């Protein structure tokens, strides 16, 4: 056994794959290979993640003491704006769709590439151009509007490089639209023979729904930011009442995009978890159709609940009631998913490798994040909790506890496929546990802070809030270590990791039927699909037969 693994690298290296298909910078920057574009995105969003993370670290340090003192209020306001903008638009929204989605969508459906490979590369350049504009805005002096850009503060009163920041988001948005379009066409037109809609991996269902949201919602964001820019540049009165505008109009438009954007972040993570749970419990997923329908209904309902961000804005009381009840309803498909994942474990044969730990972490944190959403959907309770740390804790449980755990779980699951290497398993498990513990210590105290009434976006605060803030900052330092660990051992694995082989997890799905890393054109022979997804039961029977015959 040992000799075999030591010999494998020698036999692996010479084989042609997408990674050794050209080594020049040009071969990367002008590539149209969906797998290489996925890696370009991976490197760029990792950079943005640590930029946004650095801003968060400084904020948590400032909040150690009630009177602050580490940074000025002006700088703090820029830090939370930078943290929000970078994390939302340059990390979370692109994370799973552009990295794992780009890499996996063609592989999972048995295609050679996406439908429009060159458009795919254009998307990345738009993303980078947008990111550069946002980074320039930060370096040139920063923006202090908050990631929400509420008017008339952003359009009239704020100093700083609001327009450069908005332009960055605007440009990157076109990258998102193009990516969404690409995936929609790819999934419709390029599935392998036999791969019907209800044989698709659930990851594809979530990427498909996410793509629909990207295509339908992102233009509204572009329009909103353009109107804000028109008012700021030329004094066209749209949002500022002093010029005859309506400041609430901005909030309606902004949340019409930004609420569905939450589902852009969380749905792909749900897709990842739907792949991980069956694989590591060696069972087909419970209620496949219901999870697929739940995905679509979350996407649809997600467009109808934006007003729950505006319960104290002076929006009509009756509008508030409609948005409240719809927000309660949107939680039902999410609950269906949690129950289905749990039921999949029943009578499985469960193992606890790193990706599965992330999947468990996702379910736990997403459940808390989702259920605390009910507090905010409940009108009278939201009046108290709105714009406090309760909201901060809630959406970090969804967007970090949920979306980031899903991304990391997916990254660890498909890393052997992407790179052909295995990472150090015990370090990876340690990192997963560290992230889970650090996350909870960071954000759970913030629920209590919010209930006690601490508003968000405060660099200085009343002394009675200090204990919980210190706990939160302590948790953030553990979380930071947790996030740095994968960076180290994943990079290490590129050179020193054991070769993975085509299918280290013995997973079903077309992406595991080709070699790791896959060849330039994905499959040596065009695959034909003849079985249901997650056919682990048949596989388990086969494996046990083999074992018996060996015995």
């Amino acid at each position, binding site marked *: 056994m040992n000799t075999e693994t030591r010999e494998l690298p020698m036999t692996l290296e010479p084989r042609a794959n997408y990674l050794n298909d050209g080594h020049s910078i040009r071969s990367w920057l002008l590539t149209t290979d969906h797998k290489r574009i996925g890696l370009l995105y991976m490197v760029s969003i990792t950079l943005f993640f640590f930029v946004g993370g650095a801003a968060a670290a400084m904020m948590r340090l400032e909040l150690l003491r009630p009177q602050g003192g580490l940074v000025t209020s002006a700088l703090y306001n820029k830090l939370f704006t930078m943290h929000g903008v970078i994390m939302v638009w340059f990390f979370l929204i692109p994370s799973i769709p552009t990295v794992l989605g780009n890499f996996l969508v063609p592989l999972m459906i048995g295609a050679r590439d996406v439908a429009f490979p060159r458009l795919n590369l254009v998307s990345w350049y738009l993303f980078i151009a947008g990111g550069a504009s946002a980074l320039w805005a930060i370096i040139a002096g920063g923006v*202090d509007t908050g990631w929400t850009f509420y008017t008339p503060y952003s359009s009239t009163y704020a100093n700083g490089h609001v327009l450069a920041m908005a332009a960055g988001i605007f440009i990157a948005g076109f990258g998102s639209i193009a990516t969404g379009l690409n995936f929609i066409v790819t999934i419709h037109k390029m599935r392998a023979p036999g791969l019907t809609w209800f044989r698709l991996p659930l990851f594809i269902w979530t990427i498909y729904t996410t793509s629909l949201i990207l295509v339908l919602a992102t233009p509204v964001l572009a329009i909103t930011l353009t109107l804000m820019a028109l008012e700021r540049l030329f004094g066209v009165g749209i949002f500022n009442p002093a010029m005859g505008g309506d400041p609430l109009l901005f909030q309606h438009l902004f949340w019409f995009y930004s609420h569905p954007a939450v589902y852009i972040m969380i749905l792909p993570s749900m897709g990842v978890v739907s792949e991980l749970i069956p694989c590591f419990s060696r069972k087909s997923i419970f209620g496949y159709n219901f999870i697929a329908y739940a995905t679509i209904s979350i996407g649809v309902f997600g467009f109808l609940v934006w007003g729950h961000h505006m319960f104290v804005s002076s929006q009509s009381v009756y509008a508030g009631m409609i948005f409240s009840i719809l927000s*309660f*309803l949107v*939680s039902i498909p999410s609950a269906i998913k949690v129950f289905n994942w749990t039921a999949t474990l029943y009578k499985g*044969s469960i193992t606890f490798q790193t990706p599965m730990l992330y999947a468990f972490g996702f379910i736990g944190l997403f459940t808390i994040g989702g259920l605390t959403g009910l507090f905010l959907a*409940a009108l*009278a309770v939201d009046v*108290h909790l709105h*714009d406090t740390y309760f909201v901060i804790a809630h959406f970090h449980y969804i967007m970090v506890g949920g979306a980031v755990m899903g991304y990391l779980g997916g990254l660890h699951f498909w890393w052997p496929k992407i790179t052909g290497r295995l990472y150090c398993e015990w370090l990876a498990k340690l990192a997963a546990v560290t992230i889970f513990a650090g996350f909870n210590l960071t954000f759970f105290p913030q629920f209590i802070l919010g209930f006690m*009434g601490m508003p968000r976006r405060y660099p200085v605060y009343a002394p009675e809030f200090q204990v919980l803030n210190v706990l939160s900052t302590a948790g953030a330092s553990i979380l930071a270590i947790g996030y740095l660990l994968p960076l180290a051992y994943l990079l290490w694995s590129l050179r020193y990791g054991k070769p993975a082989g085509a299918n280290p997890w013995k997973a079903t799905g077309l992406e595991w039927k080709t070699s790791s890393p896959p060849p330039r054109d994905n499959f040596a022979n065009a695959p034909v699909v003849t079985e249901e997804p997650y056919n682990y039961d048949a596989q388990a029977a086969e494996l046990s037969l083999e074992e018996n015959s060996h015995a």
Partner: protein
Amino acid sequence: MNNPSSFPFPEQASNLAPGVDWIFYTLTALCGAMTLLVVALITLFCVRYRRGSRASRANANPRSLPWEVGWTLLPLPIFLAIFFWAAKTYFRMSRPPKGAMEINVVAKQWMWKIQHSDGRREINELHIPVGRAVKLVMISQDVIHDFYVPAFRTKQDVLPGRYTTEWFTPTKPGKYHLFCAQYCGLDHAIMGGWIYVMMPADYAQWLAQGQPPDSLAARGERVFYTLGCSGCHAANSKIRAPLLDGIYGKPAPLSDGTIVTVDDQYLRDSILLPNKQIAAGYEPVMPTFQNRISEEDLTAVIAYLKSLGSVERNDP
């Protein structure tokens, strides 16, 4: 603040607070139970069905439909119940009771300016008696702010160009935080102050302090004459403009055929944007007073016009 031993339960100091807290604690119990259920099931399955365990795997794939229907429909009545409960409370929070003590609030970067109807003014402080309903009529001079008193469990955005209201009945004497909850720029975090809820005797003493200033309506009357409003809106005026006595709270027909109720917002808009809604039967000759009158003076003028209403009603 007053009672740190109650941590993590914030002080309940208004009539609204217990209602909100009951929903909060009920939700906490329900959601806590739900989370524990999921965690317990996952833990149970992970132990019992770990690879290599001897637990039976027979019938591993039960029919999913009954389960799916069950866990789709089960939460529904619970959610609807919580929705109605919270919506009912919200409705109550949005409707100030008649006869509430009206106090005007003007927010600006980065301070709260309070005007009592007796003309008394405060900055970043609000003194109110315990047990009396208070209605705040609020407006911002610049960006959006938010008047948040955690101990009262209520907050409301304060918008430029539009009056918003917020009400509560303080139930417990003490000193409570006032926070700005809507991010408003540089000093957002220190745009706060204190609400002093006082026993009636203490409040009376506080009222007696210092020179009693003009009432808000009296100040409004002065502004009304200084800015020349009386030049047109008076019975003996040569220019035809509507008389303003007694119009507050009444329906006013507009030149486009619609009918509006004369309220704070209508009066404010008519002063700043006179061509927006023109009273039926009059020429649109009124100049705008935008940039000529401060938010505080506007509030005073509106208070004056309201006081005319009460005079009119006494007159047969």
